[in-house]
């Protein structure tokens, strides 16, 4: 296995890939390494992330990272989501990610925070 079984599994069968009807926040950004784009859509309610989905034509690491991130974020308070760090994802991906691929892990996080900032939820 190239990366880890977590990545393998989430890459093959992402749980939160897709669009969200009536999203409150949408944001996308580009991986400077490769130009890949990731887009995250959010529904917010009562200061929490009520629902979320991601989209993007990206590598296995980025796909798994986005899927995992969305899973973590769903149902959480916005403050908690904003406090998430790359290490929270790295630990749960259970893979040793080389420095050259680290942006593949962090891009979804950056996009999610961008989405929250865009709707003024990040204060």
């Amino acid at each position, binding site marked *: *296995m*190239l990366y880890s079984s977590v990545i*393998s599994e989430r*890459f093959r069968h992402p749980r939160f890939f897709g669009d969200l009807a009536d999203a409150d926040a949408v944001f996308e950004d580009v991986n400077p390494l490769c*130009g*890949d784009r990731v887009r995250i859509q959010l529904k917010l309610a009562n200061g929490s992330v009520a629902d979320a989905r991601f989209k993007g034509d990206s*590598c*296995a690491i980025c*796909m798994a990272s986005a899927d995992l991130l969305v899973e973590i974020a769903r149902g959480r308070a916005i403050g908690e989501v904003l406090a998430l760090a790359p290490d929270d994802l790295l630990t749960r991906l259970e893979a040793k990610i080389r420095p050259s*691929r680290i942006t593949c892990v962090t891009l979804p996080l950056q996009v999610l925070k961008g989405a929250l900032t865009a709707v003024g939820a990040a204060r």
Partner: protein
Amino acid sequence: MTLAERCRPDFAILNRRVNGKPLVYLDSAASSQKPRQVIEAVRRYYETTHANVHRSIHTLGEEATALLESVRDRVRQFIGAAQREEIVFTRGTTDAINLVAQAIGRTVKAGDEVIVTEMEHHSNLIPWQMLCRDRGAVLKAVPVIGEGFLDLEAFTRLLSRRTRVVAVAHVSNVLGTINPVREIAERAHAAGALVLVDGAQAVPNLPVNVQSLGADFYAFSGHKMLGPTGGGVLYGRRAVLDSLEPAWGGGEMIKEVWIDHAQWNDLPWRFEPGTPPIAPIVGLGAAVEYLSAIGMEAVAAHERALCRLTLELLAKNGDTTIYGPRNPEIKGAVVAFNVRGLHPHDVAHLLDQEGIAVRAGHHCAMPLMRRLGVVGTVRASFSVHTTPAEIEHLARSLSNLDLMI
């Protein structure tokens, strides 16, 4: 003995193991490896001859100058330029293209036009974008059609009396397409435009004659043709160089200087401000010598055969999509492809586990990626040391990829 067998002992890096496997370096189009003749030339230069060049009266300075200038003569001959004054040393292709865009830029007016193509490397696109934005000029792009060819009819329609420059790759760094530069230059010249050819992927792999191509400018990098990083060449046709103001300022490019003005030096030094990348150019001379000793026809034939084999083997793999012409006779030393269901970066990562170095991503050609409808591709590229066995190893590894992720 085959060409590759003869060459391999010259490349020390091929003894390396990567992830426990022998290195299979299929990324020469990004940057080639260096034979010991080149590495030695650089070392010898530093250990016996180094000093700053030009305006130097002492022995080392004179020797270093003679060495540098002898590379100019050698390069002139290698690419079939008419005069040594037409060979300008640069840091590389990107530097050379920026130099031209900058120098021509001073003469470009609002409403003038520049034509590039959809298959250009960012190096032959962004400098023109910047120029057009700065001067209010218009940038147009020749579409890519079919298996990856320039739409010459569209090109002819784009050409007009307002066209100032046509900037085109000799060989695409993704598709491998060898573009019909001569025909493009003829049409461009008929419209009164200048032609810049990006030869970064041609000079390392094909015999090139800038005069028969009809290029006004021809740019290439040393590091892609077995030479050191940090040096490159701009060929400029004498009459055109003569007509241009220097792009950048500094020492060596002037004759006399006052605080408020200066008198430019003669060609080619007028376009070479500052201390040149002496050792990289000395190494480039050794690289030209190495390639010349093999003969560029032989290099091209060798790489064509590898290209043919790669295309054949990949075509047998139902999960693989190939980009660019399928006919190796009209193709440079690169093959781009994708594997179904896998992102190119994952493919490259997986191949790296097998010791195979390929490039993956947009290859600094994002507009082309959009035209191909992909986020990126994997690219295998070849050099004199590449063997059929390495290509077979690549093909075999690709067949097993899906199981590994």
